């Protein structure tokens, strides 16, 4: 890599059709593609748990789109679930940190609104088996 490219045709460099790296690449990519499928399933079964103060205020499945209104410590908060993600659409707080956080979708991601004492946490649906039967691998 330190040497400049040789502009003359490099007839001497003999490429191979199939080499060890190729095999590793194929195995890795196949595994990556396979790993994606259960991940997408999990996202469908996850729930957003909303707490205000120290108690759970609401629980929304991320599989169903919808917009919900609930009362925070200082005013109403609108929480929107769409495409397997959840976000705070509007809040009466002054700095709007929660709104600017945007959507979260992965398990254990959080949105926090300090003035409203509100926390939205995405939780995997591993505990409630009702949504899906066991995924066959």
């Amino acid at each position: 890599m330190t040497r400049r490219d040789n502009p003359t045709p490099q007839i001497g460099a003999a490429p191979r059709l199939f080499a060890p790296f190729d095999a590793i690449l194929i195995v890795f990519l196949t595994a990556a593609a396979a790993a994606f499928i259960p991940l997408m399933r999990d996202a469908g079964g996850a729930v957003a748990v909303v707490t205000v103060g120290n108690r759970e205020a609401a629980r929304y499945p991320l599989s169903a789109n919808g917009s919900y209104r609930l009362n925070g410590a200082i005013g109403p908060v609108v929480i929107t679930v769409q495409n397997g993600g959840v976000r705070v659409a509007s809040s009466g707080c002054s700095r709007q940190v929660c709104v600017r956080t945007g959507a979260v979708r992965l398990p254990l991601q959080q949105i926090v609104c300090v003035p409203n004492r509100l926390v939205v946490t995405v939780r995997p649906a591993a505990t409630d088996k009702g949504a899906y039967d066991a995924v066959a691998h």
Partner: protein
Amino acid sequence: MTQSRTETGDRTAQKAALLLLAVSLTALEFFIPRIPFVPWLKPGIANAVTMIWIVRYGMADTLLYSLLRIWITGFYFGFSLITLSLALSGALLATAGMALTWQILGKRRLAGFVGLGIIGALLHNTGQLVAVFHLFARNSALFYQAPLMIAAALVSGTLVAAVAWHGLRSFDRMTTQPVTVAYQPVAAPAATAPAVAASLALLTAAVTVSMIDRAAMLAASALAATALAAFVSRSALRPFIDPARRFWLLFVFVAAIHLFLSYGTRIPQAPFLTFEGVRATGMQWLRVWTWIQLSTVLVRAGFSGVFLAALTRVFPSRLDTIRAGLLALQQYPAVLDRTRALARRSLPRILRRPGHAVRHGMTALINDIVSHIVDNPSPKDPA
């Protein structure tokens, strides 16, 4: 009327033949039907030429080749900022990835053509997807098709590797038989100072439009771009014909992505629409519209010459490749006609014996292109 003589032993003619081969393959691929819903997944057979170029001419030259190929293909499909950015993001990412793999692993015989092909296919699709994401649909739902993309890359990468493997053999055979080729060197399109200034201003405007997030400003810029396009094309109607005829599907795609997959407050009467989705669709339509109009103005402002001058400035030691690009630009309409005729003639044979086509297709195309360059000493100017 100077006739410059060169041989296929000469690198300019070799590179011109390879470039013409790549443009032909891109054009032929256009006729293969796409998979619905994921229209950006395609076999990318032209990547086979990129692999040959990497192996025989090195990394920097391949980057230049990719830019020239996109530039020439732009003349065939019609230039627009949208197709240009899609092609650039896909091709440059794929070329860089393949070239690095070859440089680091391939030369030590640790990576083979199959690996290069798969990396190329994967990065090409990734690059295009990222461009689609940024240009039309800032919606992460697009990335859920990643497993499909990986599967497609495994299949098409292996196919491309087989084509390149046999193509390299016939390319090496071609470079060892000296065939005299006569061609009339075309003058490079000039890059005048106003053209450079206009191109830079228009590109800046295009980037700015992608960052504006206010409806009124977007509408104003769309209106201004339309007026500008109408002015440079001296027609009040033309700015409306082009988007409707060539890009209507793009507008449908933008609407589908934003309307079906948007966050937001639901519109009470409609079953799935959200206010945010409708707004995002309108905004993105305005952006795409503005880009199409700016593309028209860019072409009229002499962007092509500016692009080539920039390439010459960036790659001063690789004038033979740039000259090959000019030769290919001059020859590609005729070569496309020939390859299309050749493909149509041999289609029954390709379908009957696909393995044979993979082994000998590139040889047939290269021979056809070389014989065309030999048969046509003074072609007509494409402009």
